[in-house]
């Protein structure tokens, strides 16, 4: 490790590793710092991705695929379920291996990686622009200078705050999540299950994602507004006791998912935010692996371009590029999330009933969404309102 780089990336999750990879490929000298001892561990994730999403960055490899899924099932509060038609497949990942592979791709492009390196502050010039980071590397204080800082430090991001960006997630938008990996259970290995309703996860959903034979990630997220009344862990314990009373619990993890619009600013004072730190999460699904990697790729590429052209004002291009490709879409999804989160159990049941009446070839996610709209004309107004606003 040197004391001077073009770009320092804080955080070695999928977004950080992808940023480091594309920044290094663009010719910049890159250092990626990870606060934990291991890249990829602990895992705080349901671990499901689509094939199309992930293949943009890495060829699927059995060593980081726990299950290949071809269906997902939406389960209404009354227990009835609908299986929308899907084109394509998805994967439930082994994130601890997947993240490792992504970090290796960054390293292969020339990025340096240092773990157990906790960034505790930014170095700034007299105008407030970041010119480096201050870190505890293996418990020793080190100052590292750089031209650009890419903050991929996750939901707990503080780097952005130090650069003057408000990254605080409103409690209405923060999903407080708990997950257990359980084993010794019977389940279909190629189906993602999503449970809805006030009993399992008010305003959110509970997931059961198969993770290899007889094993699954079972977790749920609910907005902090709801978690105030009853925390995520209690919903999860109740569900597992009821549904999988004999399961062995292999891990349990907590986590937060910022199901918000992208932060109002994602570039400031030579700092770029990528991934969860920038709130680059699909607000409806809470999925953030692929969107974080897309943000990371854009951030890395643009940071490298700015270094190559010696023009740091080019960094603002990142914000434009992000909003053009995904940011606008997340804004729309956010409005949809707001509408869905307000559905009562009764509405969810009736949507499921109507979806089941659809001919199978029309039973797609879009089809179900349309049914939901026509089934409840008042909802059509709500959705129209969210699209117009």
């Amino acid at each position, binding site marked *: 490790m040197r004391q001077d780089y073009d770009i320092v990336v804080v955080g070695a999750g999928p977004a950080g590793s992808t940023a480091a990879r594309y920044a290094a490929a663009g010719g910049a000298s890159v250092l990626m710092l990870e606060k934990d001892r291991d890249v990829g561990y602990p895992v705080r994730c349901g671990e499901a991705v689509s094939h199309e999403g992930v293949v943009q960055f890495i060829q699927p490899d059995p060593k980081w695929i726990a299950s290949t899924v071809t269906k997902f099932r939406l389960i209404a509060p009354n227990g009835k379920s609908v299986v929308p038609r899907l084109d394509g497949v998805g994967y439930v990942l082994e994130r601890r291996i997947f993240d490792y592979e992504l970090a290796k791709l960054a390293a292969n492009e020339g990025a340096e990686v240092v773990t157990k390196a906790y960034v505790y502050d930014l170095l700034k010039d007299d105008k407030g622009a970041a010119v480096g980071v201050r870190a505890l590397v293996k418990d020793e204080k080190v100052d590292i200078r750089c031209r650009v800082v890419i903050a991929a430090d996750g939901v*707990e991001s503080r780097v952005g705050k130090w650069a003057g960006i408000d990254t605080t997630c*409103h409690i209405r938008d923060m999903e407080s999540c708990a997950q257990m990996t359980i084993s010794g259970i019977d389940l279909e290995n190629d189906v993602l299950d999503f449970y809805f309703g006030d009993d399992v996860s008010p305003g959110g959903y509970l997931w059961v994602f198969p993770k290899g034979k007889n094993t699954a990630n079972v977790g749920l997220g609910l907005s902090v507004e709801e978690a105030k009344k009853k925390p995520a*862990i209690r919903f999860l314990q109740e569900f597992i006791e009821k549904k999988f009373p004999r399961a062995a619990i292999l891990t349990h993890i*907590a986590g937060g998912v910022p199901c918000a619009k992208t932060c109002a600013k994602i570039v400031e004072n030579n700092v770029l935010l990528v991934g969860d730190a920038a709130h680059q999460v699909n607000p409806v699904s809470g999925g953030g692996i692929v969107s974080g990697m897309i943000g990371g790729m854009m951030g890395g590429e643009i940071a490298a371009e700015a270094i190559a052209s010696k023009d740091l004002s080019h960094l603002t291009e990142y914000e434009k590029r992000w909003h053009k490709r995904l940011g606008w879409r997340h804004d729309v999804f956010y409005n949809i999330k707001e509408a869905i989160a307000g559905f009562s159990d009764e509405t969810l049941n009736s949507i499921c009933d109507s979806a089941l009446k659809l001919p199978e070839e029309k039973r797609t996610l879009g089809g179900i969404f349309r049914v939901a709209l026509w089934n409840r004309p008042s909802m059509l107004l709500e959705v129209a309102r969210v699209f117009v606003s």
Partner: protein
Amino acid sequence: MPKPYLMIHIRPGKCDYCGCCVGVCPEDAIELQESKIAIIEERCTNCRKCVWACPWEVIEFHREGVTNLPREISALDNMQFASSVK
């Protein structure tokens, strides 16, 4: 300036270091390392967002050693206090 009271408390050993609390803290008052978490007392305003956000009920209000708790707060239970703070 010292606060009249500080009531947020992290139960050691139960924390999973997930960062959910840091993400909702409007004051940048929580420091989170690999397996070390601390509330920066000078910045904490007792807003309790971290308490609600914690998926595992690790962070809690505690009254131990708090002598000058405002009367209107001590009269309420935690739940009511939660809804009274916006």
